[in-house]
Every structure is written in C-alpha cells, then in structure tokens.
C-alpha cells in the first residue's frame, strides 16, 4: 500500500487561520507576514496599533452619535409635553411621543447595527427639520448651530460605523 504523506498545513502565528500555501508570504486572512522579513513583521505590528487606535476612535464617534439619538429622544418627548400643555392637542403629544420612541429604538438598535440605525436616525432628523420648515420656514435658521452639530455627530457616527464591521 502506498503511504501518502499529507503536506503539513501552515497556520498563521498571529490569527491562527490556515495559510493557503507554503509559498505565501502573507496570511490572506489578517495580512501577517508569516514568511516575511523582520521589517515586514515590524510594519505589520505598527499598522495594527494604528488600526486599533482608529477602531477606538470610531467606537467613540459611534457612542457620541448614539448619545445624540438619546438626547433627541428626550428633547422631542419634553417638547411634546410642553406643546400639549399649551395647545391641549393630543395629536401633537402623540406625534412627539412616537418620534421620541423611534429615536430611542434607533439608539438601542445602534448597539447591534450602528451604521443602519444612525443612518435612519440622521434621515429622520433631516425630515423633522424639513416638515417643521414647511409649517414655519424661519425654523430652518433657528438653532442652526445645534442642527449642524447634531448632523455632524450622526454623520461621523455613520462613517465610523462603516469602517468597522456592522
């Protein structure tokens, strides 16, 4: 009987995944230069540290965007209560509570799907500005700095979420 010797399978010393062939210099899963030079390995660890910092930064931005959604939920609910106390209109209260609930749901959903939750949150916020402007055009200019800040926080959160796995 022919004795077949199976070639030894190489695993990446960094991520422990299988390396496609013995001729491969880099691991095709994590990019570690398994058969590379010392300089290449040093460069890999340097890039890894930068990437780690970038991920921390991205997570911070997502957290800020999530907090923005929580704040929006609170502001909309309070505004609804104030409007109800002035106009005694249950519909205005209902709309504000519904909006608040949506922002809250999106804030919690952003723990699982940050990119999509923040994107929907941003679009919802833009729509709120647009609808308010239809009834009262001057609201477009009112609190413009706050609006830019909110859009900025949500926008940064979205693009940061796109750079890390959703």
């Amino acid at each position, binding site marked *: 009987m022919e004795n077949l010797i199976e070639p030894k399978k190489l695993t990446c010393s960094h991520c422990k995944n299988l390396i496609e062939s013995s001729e*491969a210099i880099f691991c095709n899963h994590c990019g570690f230069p398994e058969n590379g030079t010392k300089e290449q390995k040093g460069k*890999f660890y340097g890039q890894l540290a930068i990437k780690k910092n970038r991920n921390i930064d991205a997570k911070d931005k997502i957290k800020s965007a999530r907090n923005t959604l929580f704040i929006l939920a609170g502001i909309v609910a309070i505004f609804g209560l104030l409007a109800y106390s002035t106009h005694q209109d249950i519909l205005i209260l209902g709309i504000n509570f519904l909006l608040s609930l949506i922002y809250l749901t999106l804030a919690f959903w952003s723990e699982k799907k940050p990119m999509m939750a923040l994107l929907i949150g941003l679009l919802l916020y833009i729509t709120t500005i647009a609808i308010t402007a239809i009834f009262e055009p001057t609201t477009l200019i009112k609190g413009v700095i706050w609006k830019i800040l909110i859009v900025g926080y949500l926008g940064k959160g979205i693009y940061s979420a796109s750079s890390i796995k959703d």
Partner: protein
Amino acid sequence: MIDITCKNCGKNLDVNSRFCSSCGNQISKNSEIGKELTISKIIWFYVVMIIFLITSVFTQEKLDYSIYSEITFEFIFILIVLLFSLSNYKEIIQLYRIPKKRYIQYTLAFLIPFVSSFSVSFFIDLVENLSDSLISTNMYADYASYKYSLSIAFVFIAVLPAIFEELAFRGYLYNLLKKISSEKTTIIATAFIFALVHFPFLSLIWIFPFGLILGYFRMKYKTLWFGMIIHFIHNLIVLLIDFYDYNQLS
C-alpha cells in the same frame, strides 16, 4: 476557487481573501471605500427627495395647486428617480423581468392591498377623530376641483406612484442598502425611509408595515412587479374610499 485579483501585484486570490498572500495588500479596504460611497449616495438621494418635496409643497401652495403645477412636479419627480436609477440601471433592469407563473403570489398581490387599504382608511379616520388640528387627509380632495377629477387622481395617485415610487425605493434605494447590510435590515430600512418621505409622522404607523410587505416581495421574488401591483391596487382602493367619502360629505 480563484475569483479576485490583487490590484497591487496582479496575483489571483481566493474569493474570501482579505489580504494578498504575495504582497500583503489589503483587499477589503476597497469595500470600505465602497461602503462610504454607498452611504453618501443614499444620503444624497434622500436629501434631493426632501428638497424636492419641500419645494413642491411651497410652490404648489403659492400656485393654488393647479393641474399644471401638479404635472410639472410629477414630471420632476419622475426625472429625479430616473436619473438616480440610471446609475444603477444594470441591476435595476433585472427587476423588471416578468415573474414566472406564481398563482399564489399573484393572488396574494391582489388580496393584500384590500386588507392594507381598508386598514389605512380605518387608521386615518381614527387619527382624524382624535384631533381638530389635522389637515384633511382625503387624497381625492386635492383633485376634486379639476375637470375629469377622478381620472386625473387615478393617474397621479394610483398609477404613477406605483411605478416610480417602487423604482425609487424597492429598486434604486433597496439595491444601495443591500450593498451595506443584510436583506432583513434592508427591508426594514427601505420601509422606514419610504414611510418617512410620505411626511406626516403619524403615517409611519400604517406606511411602514405596508413598506415591509412591499420589501418582502422585492426580496423574495427579485422583481418590482408584485410591489407595483400591490402598490397600485392599494392606492386605487384608498382613492376610491376617499372619492366616496368626499361625495358623501359634499
């Protein structure tokens, strides 16, 4: 399985490779850039839609909702949708293939709008009874003063939205969202954005579930036809109910 080529050194790589095994070039970095580009396209599409809607509401208020302004704005909306869709026409064109003979699905596509349209009418009545501040939601009322009002309303409420809203949301937008998320998330996001552009926030309660149904049919059968049929029948029934209500009140 060799499916991709490293752009840096030209080596053929396994489809699942995230790095080139020969030069260490990161393959997945391109998909990150692609993701950002897709997000930008979604935001731009939505912002253009919102600007268009605000402009149309303002201008039509000033022009007292004439038939000419109605036609002009409908034409602009169609143009916007077609221009965006043009950038994705290869994928969108696949969605216009006539689905195979699926009797159950066709039956459902005819039955679902009956349930959805009567539910919507019920919710609108309920909301209207809650408050006096709500502007009339009767869709026919905007067209009532025109000659051949029902025929015009039929085109603007039942026919055109079924064709072009489906192309915009279940076609262009769905294809973009699918690139950055799972099918399930795409259906939810498309339905939500579709409900948002219908403006009054309370309409989210009935348009969002309707959007979920349309999105499910789009995902399951990879065609816009079921969505167009459901959307058309739904809008037509709502229009006929509003037409009946309007004449009863008159």
